[in-house]
């Protein structure tokens, strides 16, 4: 499936992919990293987080991996997930590029 079909991504999905793009992480690590990045307060609780992770696994964006020296399961991003993330970031950048001039030249907020 073409990643473009899944765009735009929900902010939460985007943040999770972005965190995993930096390296595999277990559940709480993800929650912490996502909370740190999202100033608007995307709060994740464990049950909802795993629902999102299951969905992403099903879509092939992420996969489970064996953590080294730790019993706990971690998730890592797949090449498909990376492609999707890149596509979404590209889309957002293009969108920003198109929208920004309006503020720069327009009225003050």
């Amino acid at each position, binding site marked *: 499936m073409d990643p473009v079909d899944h765009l735009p991504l929900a902010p939460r999905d985007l943040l999770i992919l972005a965190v995993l793009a930096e390296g595999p992480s277990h*559940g*709480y690590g993800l929650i912490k990293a996502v909370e740190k990045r999202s100033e608007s307060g995307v709060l994740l*609780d464990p*049950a*909802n*987080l*795993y629902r999102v992770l299951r*969905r992403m696994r*099903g879509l092939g964006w992420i996969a489970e991996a064996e953590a080294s020296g730790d019993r706990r399961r971690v998730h890592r991003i797949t090449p498909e997930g990376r492609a999707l993330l890149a596509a979404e970031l590209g889309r957002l950048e293009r969108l920003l590029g198109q929208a920004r001039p309006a503020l720069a030249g327009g009225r003050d907020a």
Partner: protein
Amino acid sequence: MTPRRSGRVHPLERVYATALLLLPPRVRREDGDAIRETLRDQLADAPDDRRTALALLAISRFPGAALRHWKDELAPGSGASRRPPHRTGRDGMDGFLRNLAYVARSLRRAPTFTLATIALVGLGAGTVTTVYTIVDDVLLRGLPYPESDRLVYLTNGSHNGPTMERLDEVEAFEFWTATSTSSVNLTRIDGEPLRLRRTEVTPDFFTIFGARPALGRLLIEADEGNPGIAVATWPAWQEVWGGREDLVGSTVRLDGEPVEIVGILSREFVHPEMVLGDPTHLFRPIDWDEAGLANPGYHAHRIVARLAEGASIATGDAQMDRVAADVAAAFPDYYTEGPQDWPLQTLHERTVEDARDGLLLLLGAVALLMLVACTNVAHLFMARGLTRGREMAIRRAIGAGRRHILAQLTFEALAIGVAGGAFGLLLAGGALRLFSAWTVELPRGTTISLDFGVLGVSILLATGTAVLFGLFPALRTIGNDPQERLRTGGAGAGTSRALNALRGGLVVAEVALSLVLVTTAGLLMRSFAAVTAQDPGVEAEGVYLVPLNLAGIDTPDTYRRRMEALRQSVREIPGVVAATYGVEAPFEFVGGDACCMASGWRPEGQPEATPIRVRSHADGPEYFETFRTELVAGRHWTSAEAGATPHPAIISERLAIQAFGSAEAAVGRTLELRGGMTIVGVAEPTLHYGLDQPHDFATWSPIEMLPFPIGRTVISLRTGPGSGPIGSAIREAIWAVEPDLPVPTVSTLEAWIDRSSSTRRLGSTLFGAFGMIALALAAAGLYGTLLYAVGERRRELGIRLALGAGRGRIQGQVVRRGLTQAGLGIAAGLGIAWFVGRLLEAWLFEIPATDPLSLASSAALLLATAAVAAWLPALRAGRTDPLETLKAE
């Protein structure tokens, strides 16, 4: 919530883990552990004060998440890569969501029903959970100490030095410790002097109770006999010294003496309340001087031991018997009755024995209440099921399968159960929090946390009831031909006798259970009334009591001299008409032989008589004027006689009758033991340890007979009529003589007497409340049943009215039906109440368990309530308009 130690499971994590059961099985299997672990990580990483909020947030979001998981699981396509192709789940998904939406809609349309059932389930589950949690925690769980099942307590109060010296011979004891707690005054540079509790212990105390130091060290063998050091408890460190870092190693002044604090106990140390009483602030090494060790009359230490592995209580008892025999042989003059008996009791049993009966009673009461609540839930669901016959028929007619309808009804009941459970959880959480803040009454109350197992069971019970009784009417209607059902209008002919009989049976059960609770409440209230009506033999109004702790008393004379100066000082306060002092005062110690008993008294000239155990009381001047205890024979001792040997004494009337046959016969005689006492007067019966305690054998003597120095004391004073509050005047009068003496409380005797029956007041209030709730629920059940029956028979009633039947006759019929059901319930309830009453016997005071007045008045109350509950539907039946009902058909 209480602060958590790291590594311990937060109680809400358990709730969360339980909730995970609601996830689709595959999700639970694959990700359940990871989800729980994530929460645990999250909680472990959060600051202490944020954990509960964080866990609650996760819990509050869980239902939504669970639903979405189910949706993912059941929806075709998305995220379903691993699902076997033949299980498309389309039906399941559609059925589930459709049912869910339908349930939400139908419950929203009946808000009264929904709220009422949720409230009932919540109340029932919440109260049962609260009480069971308390009972479980106090009665069933082990004490929080290492090898707690091997800890034993040496019964019969405090023990003396000669006994303790021989305890090392008891091989059944792996460790033993002797403790003695007293008050000390802490001198503070900034602020008033402070009264602290300090416990003397042998070093094995810390081993037995698993204490660890947070800072510094604990006491060791080598510290024995060194009164100059102490270990502070964690709460004392925080509250008294503000958590000061440099406390360990510093010196504080206790009763004017320098004492070095060498360590602080860790926060986890649980104060063994049964052994030490109120929380202690400091522990110091035991300090036995030779004289103290050798004196068999000096009973000061409570003894706890850990049995050696494999040793039984029986072995311990046998070895203790040998110790008792040795001690008795060494001090034949003291142990005139031969060796004493000090049976061992497990510390656990000892700790909970006083609270056990009351708690079990309470548990029984809430279980009854839960049953009444379940019965009402059953009522409501049945009533709803019956009125929905037409709705169900329509749904059947337009193609809903029988399975779907049943599923929908089940879902409704489950939804109510879950919501009610959540409400119950909130209630129980709140109640337990209140309870923990208010734990003075119960042993071990400070360590309680919610029991989710019981919460689950009670929710299941309520939900099961709802499902059963919600489905029952539906099953009956579903069996019918929908066409037939539609034709008859959903009511009327279709409702069977069996259903009415079932509803009637529920009402009968409800009335019976309510009667039991109301009767119990009545018995407890009458007992309470009887207790408060007791004549304590003292006149409480206007009497103030000031417990004090004098430092630096080394002889009985110092005690008397300083106390007399204090007495004189408060005596001069305007409005004070009498003042006295003693080592203790009436109603200071509540419940049995808490203090001051002496064994082995024999009346004069009767060496063969059974020795009598008496409460012996040494008092300062004006005791009888202050408490207004009247003499029934003889006179008061004069001040000239006070110092004489043998001492003059006033004895209680019961003792006089027991020993000499009558009050008059006792005057002028002597009671023999250790010097003896001459009886100069006999006092009216008095109560000393509580209004519900028996009149005891008592002696009062001048304070001059006090044989040993002691620091504890109570100043008692009587004010004349019309004097206002004099608390601050009392403090000033005391400080005028002893400027550094802490005066922690000034109480009234009325308050102390009141306190002595506070447990009874609590019991009768609780049962009164339960009884009222049960009564209201039973009335609601009866009312609802009759109202429904009237509505159901509108057509019949209309026809009868049209044919000329009198309204009064129809109303009478309805009321009769209600009263018949109530009557049956009352008859059954009386039987149960009679049986329950026998279990109550230990709790009742001068009221027989089968008290006819209580039984009759509860029955009358139930009957009157039933009459009112039946009358309202009857009025409605009488108001039936024949034309309108017939037209409506």
